[in-house]
Each structure stands twice: as structure tokens, then as C-alpha cells.
């Protein structure tokens, strides 16, 4: 199930939340666990089993790490991590490796017939945070399997983040207060996220889809740039919208999830951009990969190697294809260049820094969006040599409104505006009602409502 669907908003939400609010605190986690399993199993019931196995393995690993503290805890941790990463590897990457081994060695190993289990990249990272932090002594062992299961498959962040580490919510899992104020705030954030996804991301995304239909060989220079801009807006409003919906739902349940985006497109460098984009993912890689590798404490060469590893893995985490690795390494190169002195230049030239960052980000999205490297080359060449076709005027007319709205909102003006009216309750009520009704209207006629994160 996805949040931006009629099924979720008008069936799952009323039934689930009525039950959830009616039962006493000690039963809430159980209701949440069952609700989350229905949410998850709706699309592909068979992978529910995988989720349950993951809960069981990590739950018992946790108990064992606690029991054999100081004796075999490291070994058990390693076993649990091998299991977690092994599952992710098998279900997400096995065919990529088979394909490439076949291509390089001329062998013909048969591909495995599997589809990617929804959200596996997210929940694997979440559960790893539990066993690692338990080993490190940062969190206490979770003796209730319902609580650990609830943490892992809580439906708001289960399939597309934010990546909530166990220590973020361990206290709330045991006891939490649900206030009317938090519910109100949660619903407001949920509807803003819904509008972000359905009204802005989907509409901007239609243009990107259109370019795919036309074929990259046939697009003109203005259209190629317009398409890049449209995808840049689509992925931000899609992903951020989804994160907002998750955070809002979390508040409605009594949880505080970490913020995932902080106006990434106002960045003045790529280094800054990655502090503002998908913050829970960068945070995870920092805490569970970069710092364990030695971070920046082991000398210059090691820093470069560590950063290379982190960016390689970041790219690869986004999808099992070469273009995602390329995308990660592209940011590695830019960040290295910025560290080498370009960053100081950017600090002195703010306007240039904005333009540079936006173009670098947009260009990065092309690497991300076009999985076929040959097609990627075609698209990039059209950015400079595509000429003019005459059809630009049609696309500008149909998309300028949504693109301007997207640009204004991603500059942060929308947030400022909302803060200003936040206390004028009637205005909030009218604005959000309109967003809800319009989003429903767009979902009612949803010829185009993609879910971008299925590869993650």
C-alpha cells in the first residue's frame, strides 16, 4: 500500500486509527504491528514472511548479544549483520552480479526470478541500527518481540523512510503520550506531504514521463533542460512528500521521527546539499559506516578512501545498476573537489555557488533517472546539441505553472508562509482542506501516480 492512494486515506486510515485510539496503551503496539503487516502485505503478501524472519533473527540476536555480553557478542553481531546484509544482497543485488559476471566472463549463469521486496533497503538499515547499537551498549536489549516488531515494520517509515534508528524511538515504543495537539500537527504535516506528492511531484513528473515517450533522440535543447528541471522537482516533492506523510503519521501515532529533508535545493555546495537531502540516510552512513571505518581521524589518504567507500555504497544502495554507482561516485568527485579548495571559492561567490549547485544536482538526477548508460549519453548530448523543435512552447505552456510553484516552494518560501499563517486557524483549515480535496481529485483521476522508491 502507499500513502498517496484512496485505499490508504479512505479505508486504511479510518479503520486503523479508530482501532488504535480506542485500545489501551499496552495494546497499541500490537494493533500497530498487525496494522503494519496488513499495510505491508497488501501489495505482496509473500514478502511479509521475509519481514517476519528478519524480526525473529534480529530479536534473538539481540537477546544473545545481551546474554553473552563480553564473551561472544561480537560473533553474534557479525552473524546477524551477515544475515541482514545477505538478505539485502540476495534480494536486491543478486541479478546485478549475475548479469555482470556473465557479461565479463562469458558464462551464462541463470538469473534468479525475484522481485525486490518493498522497502527492504530501508528496513534492513533500520534493524541493523538496533543490533549494532545494542552491541555498542548505546541501547538496551528489547525483550518484547512485539515492541521490536513494531519498531521494524511500523507502517509510516517502513517502505520509504525516513530511516528511523532504534535509539530514536526506543523510549516511545515502551510508553508514549498521544495528545490532541500532536494529532493535529501530524494531520497537517500528512496533508501537506500528500499535496506535495500528488499535486506537485506527479504533475511535474508527467513531463519527465513524456520525454521518455518522445524518445531522448528527439528532444530539443530547451526540452532537455526543462525535463531535467521537472525531474529535479519531481523527485524532491515525491520523496519529501512521502517523508512528510510518514512524519505526520508518526506524530498521529505518538512518535517523533527525525526530519529527512531541509530545503536541499537552497544549498550552495554539494557538501551542503548532502547535509540537507535525505538526512536520515546520510546520518546512517555516517554513524554505521564512515565513523567505524575511521572517519577523518586516520590521516588524509584514509579519509579519501573512506569517503570513496561511503559514496560508492550510497550510490549502490539506491539501486542495483551501474548508473547508481556512477551517481554516487559523481558526488564523491564533486565533494573531493570542494574539499580541495573549490568550497572556499564557493563561499565567496554565493550566486555562482547556487547556480553551480543546482546544475550539479540536476545533472546528478539525470545519472540517477536514466539507467541505460547509452540513453544517458544521448540525453546529455541533447542538452547542448538538441536544437529547437517548436514543440517547447506546448510543454512550457502546460508545465510552467507547476514548475514555478515547485521552484518557489523548494526555495523555502512555502515553509515561511506556512509558519506565518500557522496561528490563523481558519486560514490553515481552508488551505489544507483545499489541498486534501484537490489531492483526492487528482487521485480519483490518477492516470499517473508512480512510486519512485521501489528500487531502493
Amino acid at each position, binding site marked *: 500500500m502507499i500513502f498517496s492512494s484512496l485505499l490508504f486515506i479512505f479505508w486504511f486510515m*479510518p479503520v486503523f486509527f479508530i482501532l488504535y485510539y480506542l485500545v489501551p496503551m499496552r495494546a497499541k503496539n500490537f494493533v500497530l504491528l498487525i496494522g503494519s503487516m496488513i499495510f505491508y502485505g497488501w501489495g505482496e503478501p509473500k514478502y511479509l514472511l521475509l519481514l517476519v524472519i528478519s524480526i525473529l533473527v534480529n530479536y534473538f540476536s539481540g537477546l544473545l548479544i545481551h546474554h553473552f555480553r563480553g564473551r561472544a557478542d561480537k560473533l553474534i553481531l557479525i552473524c546477524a549483520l551477515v544475515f541482514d546484509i545477505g538478505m539485502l544482497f540476495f534480494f536486491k543485488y543478486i541479478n546485478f552480479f549475475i548479469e555482470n559476471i556473465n557479461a565479463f566472463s562469458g558464462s551464462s549463469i541463470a538469473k534468479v526470478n525475484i522481485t525486490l521486496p518493498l522497502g527492504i533497503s530501508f528496513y534492513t538499515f533500520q534493524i541493523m541500527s538496533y543490533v549494532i547499537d545494542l552491541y555498542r551498549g548505546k541501547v538496551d536489549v528489547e525483550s518484547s518481540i512485539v515492541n521490536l516488531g513494531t519498531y521494524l515494520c511500523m507502517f509510516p517509515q517502513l517502505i520509504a523512510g525516513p530511516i528511523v534508528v532504534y535509539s530514536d524511538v526506543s523510549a516511545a515504543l515502551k510508553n508514549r503520550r498521544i495528545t490532541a495537539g500532536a494529532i493535529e500537527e501530524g494531520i497537517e504535516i500528512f496533508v501537506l506531504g500528500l499535496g506535495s506528492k500528488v499535486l506537485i511531484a506527479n504533475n511535474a513528473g508527467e513531463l519527465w514521463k513524456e520525454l521518455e515517450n*518522445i524518445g531522448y533522440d528527439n528532444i530539443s535543447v530547451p526540452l532537455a533542460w526543462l525535463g531535467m528541471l521537472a525531474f529535479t522537482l519531481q523527485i524532491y516533492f515525491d520523496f519529501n512528500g512521502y517523508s512528510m506523510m510518514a512524519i505526520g503519521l508518526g506524530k498521529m501515532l505518538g512518535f517523533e521521527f527525525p526530519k529527512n529533508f531541509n530545503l536541499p535545493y537552497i544549498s550552495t555546495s554539494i557538501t551542503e546539499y548532502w547535509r540537507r537531502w535525505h538526512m536520515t540516510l546520510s546520518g546512517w552512513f555516517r554513524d554505521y559506516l564512515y565513523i567505524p571505518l575511521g572517519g577523518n581521524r586516520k590521516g588524509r589518504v584514509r579519509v579519501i578512501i573512506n569517503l570513496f567507500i561511503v559514496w560508492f555504497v550510497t550510490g549502490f544502495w539506491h539501486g542495483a545498476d551501474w548508473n547508481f554507482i556512477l551517481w554516487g561516485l559523481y558526488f564523491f568527485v564533486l565533494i573531493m573537489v570542494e574539499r580541495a579548495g573549490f568550497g572556499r571559492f564557493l563561499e565567496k561567490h554565493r550566486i555562482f555557488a547556487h547556480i553551480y549547485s543546482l546544475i550539479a544536482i540536476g545533472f546528478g538526477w539525470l545519472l540517477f533517472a536514466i539507467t541505460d548508460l547509452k540513453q544517458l549519453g544521448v540525453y546529455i548530448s541533447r542538452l547542448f546539441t538538441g536544437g529547437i523543435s517548436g514543440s517547447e512552447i506546448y510543454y512550457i*505552456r502546460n508545465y510552467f*505553472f507547476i514548475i514555478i510553484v515547485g521552484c518557489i516552494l523548494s526555495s523555502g518560501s512555502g515553509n515561511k508562509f506556512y509558519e506565518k499563517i500557522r496561528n490563523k486557524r481558519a486560514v490553515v483549515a481552508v488551505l489544507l482542506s483545499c489541498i486534501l480535496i484537490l489531492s483526492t481529485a487528482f487521485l*480519483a483521476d490518477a492516470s499517473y501516480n508512480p512510486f519512485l522508491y521501489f528500487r531502493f
Partner: protein
Amino acid sequence: MLEFVRKNIFAIIFSFMVLAMFTGYLFAKGGEFSSTENRYLARRPEITLSGILDGSFMKSFELYTEEQLPLRDTLVRLKAISGELMLKNENNGIARGDRGYLFEKLVSTSGQLGKNKAAIRNFAGQTDRDISLCIVPNSYEILSRDTPAGFPNVSQKAEIDDFYSELSSYGNVSTVSVYETLKENSEKYIYYRTDHHWTTQGAYLGYCRLCEAMGLTPWKEPENLESDRLRTVDGFYGTYHSKYRGMLGGFPDTLSYYDIPVISYETGGNTYHDLYDLDKLDTYDKYAMFMYGNEGMSIVESERGGAAKKRSELIIFKDSYANCLIPFFTYNYDRLIVIDLRYYPESVNELLDKNKDADILLIYNFMHFNDDNHFYRLTS
């Protein structure tokens, strides 16, 4: 209390709206016919264990939440109108042009097109009988003056010309271009504004061009616009309208037809004595009145005393575009065998063998030729 409401005003509104919709779902009966979409809407599925295990229950339940959404029609229209407020002139792949015209988008040809071309080449190659072939361009190609600025569609003329020249090496195929005659008359009402078909007037132009190419003498009466055989019906909204749904485009159409007597018309297991299903004129899908809609095989018997140079039989392979054109051919043939390959699983070869002296005509509109996947049946 008031302070509580003020502080949590949107939570209250939201809960109310969501619960109202949920209740609406619970009380909706479902399964009714949607006239704008021309199909039955989904019902709430029964829960069964096997349905849950194989996922079919979830799929049909999701479809049900989409199709039985309370106020769905109003909401769909709201979406269309809000698009217009954003100054868009396109919704669901239909673009708004001038003079109240709607046009379908086609930014690239489909992968199916190549297969369909091959199917027709194979068909032409395996017989030595003469075949007339006509691919009719769709409205945007002819009414290019009315399409929106920069409309990015493929050139149907180029595609059709291309295919025709591919066929020039087949001596038994005569390709008939109706582009020029339609283009010359593009100021006239030759395509519907809100539907994907050509009008009866447009079809008549095509008919005359076909007669010329096939060596027939066309029935002349429609040239006299005041013909007392002509009937018209107003207030026709077609398929483009049901996708577009906005306020600013798609003025209602007028459907017209000629009262053409026949001896008998066999279609869909029934025999009629006329070619038009007049009951359809009271429904949304008025165009379905022509030839009683689409059937796999239909046969028209006609006889007109004194008609000049009439031939005996014509086999027409066609899509719905031809439905308003076929009646004219009753003036040129005693017997018309009309085949719609989508609904005709039987052997075409046997049909041709049974009717050895019949002329053969293939007539399709470009959009259908581009994406229909039943052309392989020509060589069955």
C-alpha cells in the same frame, strides 16, 4: 471547548471528511454503468482466503476504491478544471485546440506499428487478389490549424506515406490516400470535436476518394447538403470529452446519418432491416448507432434497381472509423461482408476462399493501425 476546536480545527475537518468518504463507500451499491466511461464500474469484492493468498482480492479491492469513490465524477471534473486554471490545455492525453476541438496526443508511434505493417505485407504477399488499403489520418493531422501551439504529435502523413511506399512493390495492393481530399476540406465539419471518429461528412469524402481509386461511381446525394435523406442529432459528447472533462474545450457535436435502405443486415446474431441502432442515440455513446456497433462479422444485403455499374461483393476489414462510411458502399455492392479483426477469431483465408470474387478493402484509422494488436489474424 471552543479553544480546543480552534486549536485542532483541521484534525476535526480531516476526520469528518475521511469518515464521510468511508461511510459513502460503505453505502454505495456499486456495479453500476458509467455512461461517460462506457463500462461497468467495479463492485466491492468478496473476501476469500484464496483471493488474499494470490493477491487478487487486494487488486480488485484497490480497483473498487478507485471506481466507487464517492463523488468520483465531480472530483474527476474538479481535477480537469483545476488543470485549466493552471493554464494547461491538456488532460489525460487529450489536448484542447481552437474552435472547441479536442485532440489526442501521440508523441511517438508504438512498437506495435511495425508488427501491423508486417502483418499487412504478409497478407498482401500470400494472395494474388487485388487489395485496396486506406489508412485514414486522425483529426489533429488534418485540422492542424486548430491544434494547440507547438503540438508535439508525430506526423501521420509521413508515417502513412512511408508505409504506402513500402507497399508499392506489391502489384496487387492499391493504396488510397485520403489526406489530400480531407485537407482541402479542413474548414468543413469533417471530424468530431469531442470524439475520435470522423463525421459522416468526413467519411463521405473518404468514400468518394475510395470510389475513384476502386473504379466505382459514388453515390452523389450527400453532395446536396439539403438531402431529405439526412438526419441529424445534437448534443453528442464523445470519447475525447470523457477523457478531457474540462470547462473550456469540447463543444458538443452534431451527429448525422443518411437514411439508407437495405434488404437485410446481419450482425451479432441478429438480422435487421436498417443499418442504424437508433436506440443508441439516447445514450452517451451515440456513435455506436452506426452499423449497430462493432461485431466480428456483419453482412449487408442491398439491391437498388437501376443503380449504375453495381458489383456483387466487397469484403471490408475495418475498425469503428468505417462504421459511418460503410452505408455508402451499399450503392456500389449487392453484398458487403464487414470484418472487425478484434472480434473475428476465425480463419480469414477460409473466408476469402469462400468468396472468391469479392473485392477486398482494408480501411483503418491511424491510431488504431498504430496500436491494435489483432492484425496478425489477417493471415490466419
